[in-house]
C-alpha cells in the first residue's frame, strides 16, 4: 500500500502545474465598469503597427472620452495572440467568460480576427476590429457585434488599383504571393485596373511562404515593360520585394512604379526612404496628413520604439472613442447587457474624431471614411523624421469601400 500512497502523492505534486485557472472570478460581477481587451500581436510581424501602440491609443481614447467624469470606470487589459487563431480565440473566451471583458479591440491577422469574430458573436459582446485586412468581416462572416474600423483588402485594391490608373499607371504586372490572400488581392486590383481602362500584362506567382529572393520574379515583371508592378503580397514578402526591386534598379529611369497593395507606414520606416522611394500605397490615416492628425499624434505621445502611429493604432483610438460615446448615450448597464444593442447604437450615431474626420458605420459593420493614395518621398524631399508620404489622391468615404450589396452580408438582406 505504501507504494500506492506514494504514487498518489507524486500525482498530486503535478496538480499545481495544471491548476491555477479558476473558472469564474468575482471580478466579472462588477457592474459600473467597462472592460476593454486589446488583443493583438505583441511579438511578431505586426507588433510595430499594432502591438503596445494600440493599447496606448485606446488609453488616450478613454481619457479623452470624458467618460470617467460620469462615474463610469474603464479598465484595459491586453494580450498577445502570437498570430495564432487558437491562442486568440482562447484569450477571447477567457476574457469574456471569466474576466468580464465587454469589448475586444484591434486583432490583426485575418485568421485570428475571424476566430475572435465568432467567439464575440456567440457571447454577444462588442468587437472593434482595426488590424485585420480581410473584407470577409463585413461580407460572408459579418456579425451584428462587429465593426470593422480601419481598412480592408477591397478598399486597398480599389484605391491603389483605381487611383493608380487615373494617375497614369495604365499597364500592370503582378508579383503575387501564391495563396488565397495574394490571389484575392490580385483579382480585386485587376478588376479595378480594367474598369478604369488599364490593362494587365501578366503575373508571376511566388511560393508562399519560403520565398526569400524575389529578384527573379521582379525581372520577369520588368521585362513585361509594365508601368506598374503590383505587389500582391504582405509583410516580409513585401519588404523583401521592395528591397530587391531597389537592388536590381527595377524602377530606374522612372518608367516603372512599384505599387504595394498591403504596406504600412511602419514598413516604409523599416525599409528607409532610400529603398522605398517612389513606392505607391494606400492608407486611411497618415500622422502628417493634416493639423488634426498631427495634433492627435502629439497627444498620443511617444510610442514604444519611437514610431509614429499607424492607421491601425489610429483606428483603435477612433473606434474606442466612438464606442464610449455610445456607452455614455445608452448607459453602462444596457451597453454591457447586449453587444448587439451597443453596436446598433454605434451604427446609429455619426462618427467624428481627429484621425479619420467625420464618418459613419454601415449596417454590415463597415466603418466608412476617405482613403488616400500616397507615394513614398525620395530622401531629398523628406524634411524630417517620419516625413514619408506625399498625397497623390483621395477616394471619398462613400466610394472607398465595397458597396453594401456586393459583400453578401446576411445582416443586409434581412
Amino acid at each position, binding site marked *: 500500500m505504501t*507504494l*500506492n500512497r*506514494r*504514487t*498518489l502523492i*507524486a*500525482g*498530486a*505534486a*503535478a*496538480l499545481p*502545474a*495544471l*491548476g*491555477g*485557472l*479558476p*473558472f469564474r472570478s468575482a471580478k466579472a460581477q462588477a457592474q459600473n465598469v467597462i472592460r476593454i481587451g486589446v488583443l493583438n500581436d*505583441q*511579438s511578431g510581424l505586426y*507588433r510595430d503597427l499594432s502591438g503596445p501602440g494600440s493599447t496606448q491609443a485606446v488609453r488616450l481614447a478613454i481619457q479623452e472620452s470624458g467618460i470617467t467624469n460620469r462615474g463610469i470606470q474603464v479598465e484595459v487589459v*491586453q*494580450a*498577445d*495572440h*502570437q498570430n*495564432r*487563431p*487558437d*491562442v486568440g*480565440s*482562447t*484569450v477571447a*473566451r*477567457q476574457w469574456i*467568460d*471569466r474576466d468580464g471583458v465587454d469589448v475586444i479591440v484591434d486583432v490583426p491577422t*485575418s*485568421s485570428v480576427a*475571424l*476566430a475572435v*469574430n*465568432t467567439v464575440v458573436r456567440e457571447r454577444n459582446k462588442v468587437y472593434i476590429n482595426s488590424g485585420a485586412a*480581410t473584407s*470577409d468581416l463585413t461580407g460572408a*462572416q459579418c456579425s451584428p457585434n462587429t465593426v470593422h474600423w480601419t481598412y480592408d483588402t477591397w478598399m486597398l485594391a480599389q484605391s491603389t488599383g483605381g487611383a493608380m490608373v487615373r494617375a497614369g499607371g495604365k499597364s500592370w504586372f503582378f508579383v503575387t504571393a*501564391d*495563396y*488565397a*490572400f495574394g490571389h484575392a488581392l490580385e483579382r480585386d486590383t485587376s478588376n479595378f485596373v480594367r474598369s478604369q481602362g488599364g490593362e494587365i500584362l501578366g503575373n508571376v506567382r511566388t*511560393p*508562399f*511562404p*519560403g520565398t526569400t529572393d524575389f529578384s527573379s520574379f521582379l525581372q520577369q515583371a520588368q521585362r513585361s515593360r509594365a508601368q506598374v508592378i503590383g505587389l500582391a503580397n504582405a509583410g516580409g514578402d513585401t519588404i523583401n520585394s521592395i528591397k530587391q526591386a531597389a537592388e536590381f534598379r527595377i524602377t530606374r529611369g522612372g518608367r516603372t512604379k512599384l505599387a504595394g497593395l498591403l504596406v504600412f507606414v511602419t514598413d516604409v520606416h523599416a525599409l528607409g526612404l532610400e529603398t522605398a522611394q517612389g513606392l505607391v500605397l494606400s492608407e486611411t490615416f497618415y500622422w502628417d496628413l493634416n493639423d488634426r492628425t498631427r495634433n492627435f499624434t502629439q497627444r498620443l505621445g511617444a510610442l514604444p520604439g519611437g514610431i509614429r502611429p499607424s492607421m491601425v493604432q489610429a483606428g483603435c483610438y477612433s473606434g474606442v472613442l466612438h464606442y464610449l460615446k455610445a456607452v455614455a448615450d445608452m448607459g453602462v448597464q444596457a451597453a454591457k447587457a447586449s453587444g448587439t444593442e451597443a453596436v446598433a447604437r454605434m451604427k446609429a450615431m455619426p462618427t467624428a474624431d481627429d484621425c479619420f474626420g467625420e464618418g459613419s458605420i454601415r449596417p454590415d459593420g463597415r466603418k466608412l471614411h476617405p482613403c488616400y493614395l500616397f507615394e513614398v518621398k525620395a530622401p531629398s524631399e523628406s524634411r524630417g523624421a517620419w516625413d514619408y508620404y506625399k498625397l497623390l489622391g483621395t477616394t471619398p468615404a462613400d466610394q472607398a469601400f465595397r458597396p453594401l450589396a456586393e459583400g453578401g452580408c446576411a445582416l443586409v438582406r434581412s
Partner: protein
Amino acid sequence: MADTTITAGSLPAANEAETIFGFTRPQFAAFLVMVAFIAVSPFFLFPPYLMKVLCFGLFALAFNLLIGYVGLLSFGHAAYFGMGGYIAGYTAKAWGLSPELAIILGGAVGALLGLPFGWLAIRRSGIYFAMITLALAQMVYFFCLQAPFTGGEDGIQAIPRGNLFGMFSLQSDMAMYWLVAAVFLLGFLLIHRVIHSPFGQVMKAIRENEPRAISLGYRTDDYKLIAFVLSAGLAGIAGGTKSLVFGIATLTDVHWSMSGEVVLMTLVGGLGTIFGPVVGAGVIITMQNYLAEFGAWVTVIQGAIFIACVLAFRRGVVGEIANLFRVRL
C-alpha cells in the same frame, strides 16, 4: 546505460508481475488520480483550457508512441495533427457530419497521410529520420496553404460542434468537455494496450537494439511503419477534436513550430513514460496561457525549458518522479 538512449529507459520496478488491467499497481494508482482529476476539474477550472490540455495531451501521447517506444524522433507530427483538424473541421462544417464521425475521419486521414510519409522516413533513422519528417511536414504545410478546402491563411472558421450521435448538443463547454475527456481516455487506453501487447514488446526491442530484433526474424520496418501510422492516426484524432472544441482549423496546427511544441511537451513530461506526455502538455499549455501577455518571451522561455530538459532533466517531470520512487509510470 539507461541515459544513453533517447528514452528514460526501463527502470527496475517492484511488483512488476502484479498488474491490474495491464497497469502495474503504481501506474494504476496514477491512472485513477488522472481519471479523478479529469472528472472533477471542469467544476473549478476553465473548461476550454482543460479541453486544450487534453487535446494536446493526446497529441503528445501519440508522438511519444514513436519516440518513447520505437526510438524514432518525428519532427513533423504537426502535419497529422493539423490535417486531422482540417478534415474534421471541413467535414463537420461542409458535410454536416456528426462530431464523432468527423473526429474519426480526421484520425483516418492522419493515418493515411502517415502511411506514405512513414514509408519514406523509416528508410533512415536517428537524425535523418527527424529531418525527413520535418521536410515532409513542410510539404503538407504548403499543401494546406494552397488547397481550396482549408481556407488558406484564414483557415476554416466557425466549425459547428454539432450533436453527438445526432442527438446530444455539444454547444455548451461542459458537454463538449465530456466528449473530449472520453476521446482522450480511449486514446490513452489504446496506447497503453499497444505498448503492453506483443507488438509493443517488439517495438521496444527495436528501440533497444534493432539489428538484434532483425536477427530474431522480425521485419522491423513493418513494425516501425505500423507504429508510425498508428501515431499519425492518433495525432489526427487529437487535431480533429481540437478543431471542434475551438471551432477553427488553421495553418498554426500544421506549422513546424507545432511539431517542435509537441516534442517539448513530451520532453518536459518524460519521454517513454505513459503519463509524461499528458503532464507535459498540461505544463506547456498552462505556461502559454499565463505568458500570453509577455509576447516574445514565450518563445524564449520555451527554448530555455528545452535546454534545461536536455541538459539536466532528461527524464522529465514524470520520469523524475518515477525514478524518485523507483516505480514505472
